């Protein structure tokens, strides 16, 4: 094993370095705040001869994902990065990528969607792509950003999966924040991630294959079922790959990671960079004798139903804290968590908190408040207001 190099780098650099270590062949990309540094770094790596790949400076994200699809269909390893309006503009192509079963990896600098225009962090962009058939991972810090990129390629390219993966790192909180990151040695990543050798058909004149052609009603549903089966099968592959990564590199990832959950009455469920603050809040509350824990979702797609049942099943209350909103309902995780427990007799009280939209900070006090509100609901044995908005600017609100 080579030694890991400690660097202090921005989140975008972490995902770019993670991608570079995976030796992609093609990098089609279009700049957008807060992901712009990714294509800039990739073109530098390529221009400086550190990475043997083709960079394509396309004219939109729609073209970026189209080029990813074309390149990946030839059997190339492909990576790109985007955010917000960029991911929204790719929407059409996201379904083509997963439908053609192409293991493309994309780093997303999670950013709010217009209107109004906002360049800061929330998860609306990737959550809006939830049903596109991509696997979705969310990083808490820059180290996770780098590691998840490497894991993403291995999982995506696994014969049992063959699906694209997006890795979310929070806008600015991670993309532009400098943190210490341990970077694995190239030879170790090479051993962990073999060269992409597609067993399925590729665009190859010697063995012609057609991608994405017409599927009439007699076949379409079977295609979709097979694709859905693949994402189901990815569950065990993710565990396998995360464990192998831990063995080689010393950092264990889990679909859901826990902190102080064993005896917790109330568990905060979080995603992305807010988990760091939430952990501090849990530490603080534990000192005050409160029985509170933290569960962090690293994998949102496939949604880890069994793991969540296991972790949250014995708690009295769960505070589902989300940086996304499905207007007319509530948060996406809340919906899915509710469905996860729908057939269970014993289930925790669940409350949904929407906060941190468009870069609004989430403070320790906010987590304490959400804990308290959940505890109150548990004690009252009823939830008056299932979805609540936290940390509103009173001056602006009505």
């Amino acid at each position, binding site marked *: 094993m080579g030694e890991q190099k400690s660097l202090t780098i921005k989140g975008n650099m972490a995902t770019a370095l993670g991608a570079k270590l995976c030796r992609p062949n093609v990098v089609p990309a279009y700049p*957008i705040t807060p992901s*712009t540094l990714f294509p800039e770094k990739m073109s530098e790596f390529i*221009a400086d001869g550190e990475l043997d790949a083709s960079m394509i400076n396309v004219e939109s994200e729609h073209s970026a994902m189209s080029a990813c699809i074309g390149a990946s269909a030839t059997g190339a390893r492909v990576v790109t990065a985007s955010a917000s309006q960029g991911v929204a503009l790719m929407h059409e192509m996201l379904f083509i990528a997963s439908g053609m079963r192409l293991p493309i990896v994309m780093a997303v600098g999670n950013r709010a969607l217009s209107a109004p225009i906002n360049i800061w962090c929330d998860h609306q962009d990737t959550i809006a792509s939830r049903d596109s058939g991509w696997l979705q991972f969310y990083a808490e810090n820059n180290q996770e950003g780098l590691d998840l990129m490497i894991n993403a390629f291995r999982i995506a390219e696994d014969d049992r999966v063959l699906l694209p993966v997006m890795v979310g790192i929070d806008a600015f909180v991670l993309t532009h924040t400098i943190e210490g990151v341990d970077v694995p040695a190239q030879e170790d990543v090479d051993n962990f991630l073999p060269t992409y050798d597609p067993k399925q058909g590729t665009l190859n004149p010697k063995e012609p294959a057609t991608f994405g052609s017409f599927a009439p009603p007699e076949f379409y549903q079977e295609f979709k079922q097979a694709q859905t089966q693949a994402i189901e099968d990815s569950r065990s592959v993710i565990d396998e790959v995360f464990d192998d990564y831990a063995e080689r590199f010393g950092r264990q990832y889990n679909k859901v990671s826990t902190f102080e959950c064993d005896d917790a009455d109330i568990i905060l469920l979080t995603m992305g960079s807010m988990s760091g603050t939430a952990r501090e809040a849990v530490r603080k509350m534990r000192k005050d004798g409160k029985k509170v824990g933290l569960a962090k979702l690293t994998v949102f797609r496939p949604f880890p139903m069994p793991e969540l049942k296991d972790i949250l099943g014995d708690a009295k209350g769960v505070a589902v804290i989300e940086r996304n909103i499905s207007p007319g309902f509530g948060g996406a995780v809340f919906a899915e968590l509710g469905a996860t427990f729908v057939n269970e007799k014993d289930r925790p009280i669940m409350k949904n908190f929407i906060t941190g939209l468009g870069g609004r900070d989430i403070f320790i006090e906010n987590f304490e408040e959400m804990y308290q509100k959940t505890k109150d609901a548990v004690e009252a044995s009823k939830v008056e207001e299932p979805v609540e908005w936290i940390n509103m600017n009173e001056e602006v609100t009505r």
Partner: protein
Amino acid sequence: MAEQMEGDVIGGKKIQEKYLRDEMMPHIFCNGCGLGNVLDYVLWAVEKEGFDMDKTVFLSGIGCSSRIPGYIDADALHTTHGRALGFATGVKMANPELNVIVFTGDGDCIGIGGNHFIHAARRNLNITVIAVNNYIYGMTGGQVAPTTPEGHFGTTAPYGNIESPFDMSKMAIAAGATYVARWPVYRPNQPINSIREGLRNNGFSFIEMMSPCTTAYGRRNKFREIKDLWDFYIDNTILKEEYEMTMKFGSEEEKEAAKDKIIIGELHKISKKPLEDRYRDLVKELME
């Protein structure tokens, strides 16, 4: 209205005071950026044409250039990257009474928004487009755009751009625009006159403003001083009339030199019914 103007002052007020939103100041533009000039020229044109601000809508996409409408005290739609002309089509067709002025960047207009651009021009929609060409994606920090000259540098082309650029004005003409002009920002009067022409033209008017981006483009391309970019424009442009004369009467050498230059001036002016008028006529005819 025009009579009361003297220098920068209209009826005792500075033009900035009349048209700009005080609360939006200071603006975000960098030192030496040409966007302030472009804004100024458009305000003068609007003033001289006596446009009613209550009947004028400014639209823009995303980019530094697209930030301009935010500073003007008038109705505005600040939309998404590349789509301003799509939105403008909706505004104009829904209410043809409105004067529609679109601010867009080179990337916004013919990169990501290229499709909307050629189709708005093809339809000869009666709007005025102020396309600010700084030859780069300014707002995102200097990535190469579809206008970046070959060999010039961007953050995504650290060893120089290898792609051939678009000529925005030629594209506008080819696509069907009825008024097209191109001016560098260092000339104030000509662009103001062209913008006025554009506002008066009953059809798709396209004014390309060559505008220095000091931060994202100049710095990376060895234009260290603001003046260097202005000099670059001076050295590399030729007036349309001068170009035509050179091609007719110049020596072979002069002709060769002229061929490499960017032609500026009023490039194209024809008369053709705009989409809204054709639509109205058709409806009228069918109703009769």
